Structures are given as structure tokens and as C-alpha cells.
């Protein structure tokens, strides 16, 4: 089974801090994704990576950046955390090659910015 592991289940940070959320997948997947999930809004795509060092903005990239130096690891960075970035963050991956692929999700990081 594919395993997508997010480094923290819960995280509390202060406004202005630089925050790193880490995600690792163990199935040699090409594509990796970062979403945020807020009540009533479903999942919204922040950033997407289709290969090492390759990234593409999603629907809500403002205030975020990403890094993918190795195929299995995809990091989400909050450059200067703000309270409106308090949310559940979900990482996902899929094996790419075609569009008809299921995505595999980690268990999420619930981030609170105080």
C-alpha cells in the first residue's frame, strides 16, 4: 500500500514565523500535492509538483512556497505565518503518467497560528 507521511499531526506556531510542513511518500510517485482544508470549502490546491525541482502554483499559492529536492519529499513553506493560515494541511501523491489516477493522502497537519 502507498504510504504518505506528514511529519506532524498538530503544530502551533506564532505569527511571522517561517513554518515548514514535510511530506514523504514511499511509492516513487511522480506527482505530489499540497492542499488546505477549511470547513465548508473542501480542499483547495496550494501547490503541485510533477517532478523533482518542478512545481506549479495551485489555486491559492499566496503566502506559500514549496520545495522538492528529492522525489519522495515535498515540503510546504509558510514564509511568514499569519493567523489566516490556520487550517488543516493535506499532502497527496499519485504516480502520474496519466490523468486518471487516484491520489493518496497523508493524515494531515492541523496547523494553528497564534
Amino acid at each position, binding site marked *: 500500500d502507498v504510504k*504518505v507521511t506528514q511529519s506532524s499531526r498538530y503544530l502551533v506556531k506564532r505569527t511571522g514565523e517561517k513554518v515548514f510542513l514535510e511530506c514523504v511518500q514511499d511509492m516513487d510517485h511522480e*506527482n505530489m*500535492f499540497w*492542499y488546505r482544508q477549511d470547513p*465548508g*470549502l*473542501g*480542499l*483547495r*490546491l496550494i501547490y*503541485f509538483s*510533477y517532478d523533482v525541482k518542478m512545481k*506549479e502554483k*495551485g*489555486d491559492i499559492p499566496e503566502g506559500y512556497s514549496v520545495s522538492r529536492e528529492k522525489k519522495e519529499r515535498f515540503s510546504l513553506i509558510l514564509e511568514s505565518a499569519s493567523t489566516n493560515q490556520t487550517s488543516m494541511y*493535506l499532502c*497527496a501523491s*499519485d504516480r*502520474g503518467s*496519466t*490523468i*486518471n*489516477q*487516484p*491520489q*493518496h*493522502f*497523508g*493524515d*494531515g497537519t*492541523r496547523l494553528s497560528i497564534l
Partner: protein
Amino acid sequence: SQQGEEDPQALSIQEGENATMNCSYKTSINNLQWYRQNSGRGLVHLILIRSNEREKHSGRLRVTLDTSKKSSSLLITASRAADTASYFCATDRGPGGYNKLIFGAGTRLAVHP
């Protein structure tokens, strides 16, 4: 942008009953997927239906797709308390979209023993 919209937002039923959730979307798609999320956990993929398919089954799950109406439904038969979760539909973004999905806001299903 939010493409898939689920209906109803919340559904409460008794064990043994069937649960039907609906999803509508706005643009042409290659596929539509359904996911499940238990409270506080990540999403789990349930089923993928391609645009040229009309119905698909997996165990107690049945998914239909009507591309002319841009809608899909997920039916869970003989529901169990363990089916209590949120259910999301997701669609792709068409040609050139890689596999970036657009998720709806979800249906919260509560199955009472």
C-alpha cells in the same frame, strides 16, 4: 475555484438504510472521483469513474455519472455505523491539467446504530 458541489451537505440515516450523495460540476471532465474522510484523518480514494462510463460498482458502493447533466451520485447500500464520514467528489481539470483535482465541500454522513 470550486467545481464539484455535493448535495446534501449533511445526511443522517439508520444502519441498514441506503445513503445517496450527489455531486454536480461545471466543466467537461476526463474523470470523477469519490473520496472518504474519517474525522481528523486524510482522504481515502473510493472509486474513479471515467467520462465514458455511466456506472461503476465497488462492494457496497455504486457510482453513476451523467455527463449531459454534469452530475454524479454515490450510493452506499446497507450502511453501517463505520460508514460515518465525510464524502467528497473531485474532478480533473481537463486536458493539460495533469491530475490536479478540484474538490467539492463534501457531504457529512452520520449512520446511527
